């Protein structure tokens, strides 16, 4: 993102224009004044807080007592030897590994559909994005209602005669989707795939529109079918789009919190099925008030997210042009 950004800008900034006061003192002062408030906030609350978190994490530090004793890496080793935290890591990774590709696939399909010159494309685009407008609190509450044992979902599949199929997959007629440890996380994956695929559709749509139409004209002249055009042209040319969406999705996925908290409470119920890394961190800070332990969890989370981002960069080859 940044490495590609800087070189493209240098020719603009370095070109001296007649009449313009290049890099005058007044201009520099104006520049600093214009960025001052955001930069102070960022340096204290973002950059500064990483360093502060690192510092806190090597102490025994409660909200009320403040720093009590320097304990080195004990918070980290405690976390990594707590079975609940290991479950939280496992759940978070499970969620991310399933939710990201499912939501990307739906988002891309929807983008390809609304990118065509079809009747009502504005309506379809608006409809597909619609579930993304509500808050996680509202939509998760609604989802819990729909997925409860005597809820709309179970009623609808009975009415549609789909129960034999669900029974075959091992689900009872009055399956408690979020209250059952076996289906709780999968239900959250379904929920978030539904609400977020519209957002990914819009990301992909921007990418699709950057593919020149001549490429398709050439392919059509060569007799390529629609599906060949998609798999041989669209899909590979969308690589920067895939990279961006995948990066945003993985970062978001590893931070799963709202839906887990609303669906399973602070305990990530049932039976830790909805315990995620961030929920665990939240509990450490605001249930046990063990701030240094929570800070260490935050650092571990950051390392996981950062490694995942680097891994993706490696997987997708060189950094894309944006």
């Amino acid at each position, binding site marked *: 993102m940044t490495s590609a950004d800087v070189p493209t800008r240098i020719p603009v900034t370095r070109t001296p224009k007649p009449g313009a006061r290049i890099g005058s003192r007044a*201009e520099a002062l104006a520049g600093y004044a214009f960025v001052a408030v955001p930069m102070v906030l960022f340096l204290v609350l973002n950059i500064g807080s990483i360093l502060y978190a690192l510092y*806190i994490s090597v102490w025994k530090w409660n909200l009320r007592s403040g720093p009590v004793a320097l304990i080195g890496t004990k918070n980290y080793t405690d976390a990594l030897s707590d079975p609940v935290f290991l479950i939280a890591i496992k759940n978070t990774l499970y969620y991310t590994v399933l939710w990201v590709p499912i939501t990307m696939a739906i988002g891309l399909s929807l983008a*390809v559909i609304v990118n065509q010159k079809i009747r009502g494309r504005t309506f379809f685009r608006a409809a*597909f994005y619609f579930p993304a407008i509500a*808050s996680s*609190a509202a939509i998760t509450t609604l989802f819990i209602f729909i997925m409860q044992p005597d809820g709309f979902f179970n009623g609808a599949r009975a009415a549609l005669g789909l129960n034999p199929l669900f029974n075959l997959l091992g689900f009872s007629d009055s399956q408690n989707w979020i209250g059952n440890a076996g289906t709780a996380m999968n239900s959250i994956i379904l929920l978030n795939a539904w609400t977020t695929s519209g957002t990914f559709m819009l990301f992909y749509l921007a990418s699709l529109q950057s593919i020149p139409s001549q490429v398709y004209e050439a392919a059509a002249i060569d007799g390529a079918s629609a599906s060949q055009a998609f798999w041989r042209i669209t899909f590979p040319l969308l690589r920067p789009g895939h990279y961006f969406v995948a990066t945003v999705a993985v970062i978001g996925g590893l931070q799963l919190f709202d839906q887990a908290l609303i669906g399973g409470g602070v305990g990530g119920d049932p039976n830790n099925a909805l315990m995620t890394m961030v929920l665990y961190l939240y509990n450490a800070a605001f249930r046990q008030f063990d701030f240094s332990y929570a800070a260490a969890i935050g650092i571990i989370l950051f390392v996981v997210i950062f490694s995942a981002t680097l891994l993706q960069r490696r997987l997708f080859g060189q950094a894309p042009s944006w």
Partner: protein
Amino acid sequence: MTSTTGASDLGVTVATIGDRGAIWRRRIAYTLMIAYALLMFVPFTWSVVTSFKTLPDSVRMTFIPQPFTTQGWEFAITKLDPPITTLFLNSAVIAAVITISNLALGSLAGYAFARLRFPGRELLFLVVLATLMIPDQLRLVPVYLLLNDVGLTKGFAQYIGLVVVLAIGGSSIFLLRQYFLSIPRELEEAARIDGAGFFTTFYRVMLPLAGPALSAVAILTFQGTWNGLFWPLILLQDRAHYTLPVGLLAFRTAGGFTNNWPPIMATVILATIPILILYLFFQRYFVEGVAASGVKG
């Protein structure tokens, strides 16, 4: 089905040869698309239906409430603690303040990063980009302790603490900077030659031209803040200060409200209506804003 931009024109040419298969494929595709689009609205429709039902009726698969009652709405409007009006007001004021602050700080900084030359600009812009990659959860403990040290975690100051944390987002600066970069330089050079200062040039010439980007930032920020759960949950500890999402979460476990679906659904609808209205009127800006934040240049 799977053809894109230019290919769809050519797809029509193929279809006119009298390919009945293509016509049928098209019909099936439309049916599936309409079905999927309807599926997007079903849960919300169901919440509206349920909000007018009685509790025993709420678990029946009927689309007409039997009997039709507004008890759920009365409960949601009169019996919640804190009252829904308080939650609504908190959400509205917080979202408005944070939106205005993002517009003001974001456009000034975005303009400076796009146009003004000052030592260290690239480095500072890297800091802006870095904030987009730092997870909020990592900041939770240090930010809370910092705010606690300066007394912004108690009483009314909780609001101020929340505003300070959300006052400016890296993405607001980024979006506006990208937009300012796309505006031709000639316009502001004319103003500069006429002797206008940097702020006047920004305020009188560039800002009026940035309407679409400002709209996108306003919509995205307002929606994000209105819907946000994480920071309000942590920083607004007093019940009277709750926003709608925090209230919804609290009500899930409150006595007399848990699993009392009609009032819960009424609350869900009330929490969603303002954003729904915004979406109906400014759909274009939602779409463009999200797309622009995805293009990154």
